[in-house]
């Protein structure tokens, strides 16, 4: 049992060290990675970038042309119109039409979707707003709904009880429209601080998509037909002034769609190289174009489409690694694996093991095994324990430190001496 206790302690030590040492290494050696802020110029139809590097700010485009700040802003009149108007540099017409600031502003939208948004705990309870109250501002409902295996249930917070009438009514309508309970996903904007209410989008147990609203107290529900092989990973609802779409839908095969308002058409927004689990996605629109930017750990990809979502242009920039080449090698040699704990690329707090990127750690593990043997023989310990060597061989630095911190306690030699001689 003492041996078991010791190995448990070694295991916990290895676990702890692998959770903290790599972070500590980064804290010491990590360097700033300049990431370009990518936009698409309505003037040149090139990508224009702004990047902070070595304390300076660079402005350049995908053709390699360098700009100063003002020239950069002039490349992006739909974005910097206020500054340009102040500078007197705003053109009179854009895209053949006279400049209308209100129109420009209304057409601009921006969203950012991160892995923590996608893999995150769900509230489970949502306020269903009255979307046709006749009032200018939205009003808070006095209940919250959930959709479980029994159907949709409206709960009154004051009494913490279910409202049977409303629940039954809505449940019946949902069933009529073909929903299979419980809901896998409910997406919407659950606050009154939005421009208008479009209700919620619900993915049911079978993966079918529904739109639910409340109009004058009564349920409005439609099932939205989905294309073939369309499996929804994430829905992000928006409330942009242009009211072009209800929101974005990301599928399990990493495609991005917008759900067109009223028509419920699923329009593909061209994005490539996007991994929702690890990458940040920026989606931007204006009077001229649609721009998707994929921020990966070591790359930036940008895809410019026109307003009809037809891909026009692509851009890619490779980023510096957050460790210099040398320190990166040291990192890979020293740390055979890492335990990551916390909401890194997830809204959930996960504790997971990160396996090594390559096999350089074998060098490190062998080094620490050798070092341990050297220490062992200079201290003239009693016996080599195979389990210890195996641990160090497998876990390198972590096991090395663990075994040193927790030396073998039992002296098995005496236990094995025969007692038969003394009877």
């Amino acid at each position, binding site marked *: *049992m*003492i041996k*078991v*206790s*010791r190995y*448990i*302690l070694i*295991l*916990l*030590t290895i*676990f*702890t*060290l692998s*959770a*903290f040492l790599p972070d500590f290494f980064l804290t010491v050696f990590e360097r700033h990675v300049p990431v370009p802020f990518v936009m698409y110029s309505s003037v040149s139809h090139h990508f224009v970038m702004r990047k902070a590097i070595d304390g300076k700010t660079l402005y350049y485009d995908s053709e390699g042309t360098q700009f100063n700040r003002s020239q950069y802003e002039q490349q992006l009149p739909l974005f910097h119109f206020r500054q340009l108007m102040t500078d007197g540099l705003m053109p009179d017409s854009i895209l053949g039409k006279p400049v209308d600031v209100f129109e420009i502003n209304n057409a601009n939208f921006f969203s950012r979707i991160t892995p923590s948004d996608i893999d*995150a*705990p769900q*509230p*489970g*309870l949502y*306020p269903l707003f009255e979307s046709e109250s006749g009032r200018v501002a939205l009003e*808070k409902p*006095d*209940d*919250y709904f*959930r959709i479980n295996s029994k159907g949709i249930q409206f*709960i009154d*917070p*004051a009494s*913490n009880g279910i409202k049977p009438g409303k629940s039954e009514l809505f449940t019946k309508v949902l069933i009529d429209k073909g929903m299979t309970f419980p809901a896998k996903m409910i997406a919407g904007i*659950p*606050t009154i601080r939005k421009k208008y209410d479009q209700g919620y989008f619900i993915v049911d147990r079978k993966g079918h998509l529904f739109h639910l609203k409340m109009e004058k107290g009564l349920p409005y529900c439609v099932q939205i037909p989905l294309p073939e092989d369309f499996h929804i990973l994430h829905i992000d609802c928006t409330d942009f002034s242009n009211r072009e779409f209800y929101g974005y839908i990301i599928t399990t095969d990493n495609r991005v769609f917008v759900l067109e308002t009223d028509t419920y058409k699923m329009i593909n927004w061209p994005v490539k190289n996007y991994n929702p689990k690890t990458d940040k996605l920026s989606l931007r629109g204006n009077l001229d174009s649609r721009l998707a930017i994929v921020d990966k750990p070591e790359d930036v990809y940008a895809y410019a489409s026109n307003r009809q979502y037809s891909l026009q242009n692509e851009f890619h920039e490779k980023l510096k690694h957050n460790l210099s080449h040398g320190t990166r090698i040291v990192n890979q040699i020293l740390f055979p694996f890492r335990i990551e*704990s*916390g*909401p890194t690329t997830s*809204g*959930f*707090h*996960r*504790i997971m093991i990160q396996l090594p990127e390559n096999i350089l750690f074998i060098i490190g593990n062998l080094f620490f095994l050798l070092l341990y043997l050297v220490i062992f023989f200079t201290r003239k310990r009693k016996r080599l324990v195979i389990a210890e060597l195996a641990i160090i061989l497998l876990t390198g630095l972590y096991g090395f430190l663990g075994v040193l*911190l*927790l*030396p073998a*306690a*039992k002296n098995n030699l005496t236990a094995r001496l025969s007692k038969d001689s003394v009877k």
Partner: protein
Amino acid sequence: MLKALFIKEWIKIRWILIGFFAVSLFSAAKLLLDIHHQIELMGAGNLWDILLFNNFNPYRWMEYVPLVTGISIAMAQFIPEVQHKRIKLSFHLPVNENRMLMQLTLMGNLFLLTIFLSELVIALVGITFVLPKKLILDALITLAPWFLGGITAYHLTTMVVFEFTAIRRLLLILVASAFITLFYQSATIGAYRPALPLLAILTILTFFTHLYTAYRFRKGINQ
């Protein structure tokens, strides 16, 4: 024999136990008071709103109570045993030494569980009246790692108390502290759920860690 051991441990640390029992109950009571106060001020609907969508965390006052409880009870239980090597008396009893050590921590676990479960039950039952199932579950997910951390801290503190070489003890404290932070990292409501099974397993593993250092203590190994 277990009954005798229970009585002995109870006599030894009863005031500490009562003290922390009171603190834990107070902690649960404060939660209930806070919740009801919020309902009084803003109405249940708004309370649900900030709980669901604004990351309101009324449980934050309960966060470190289990941790301090676990550490304190371990110290109260085992520092007297380690002083003057009194635990030799227990090791000399006609019981296997490892068994005795596990029985000692069994007692500690019983005390802790009583305190923690009381606190948890009062807190959860209290909020069941005013919060829906989902939010109760969120509360449980938020509280669970803190209680697991308290039990873990009890065992790791016991392990550390038995290590009497200063340098190793310091290093063990460092490693144990770092390990325990895994139970107390900041997270949004409900976020800890995927980590709970692993944390539970790790907690159970710590039940056995004191056997190693206690053996070293028993045999006077001081290297």
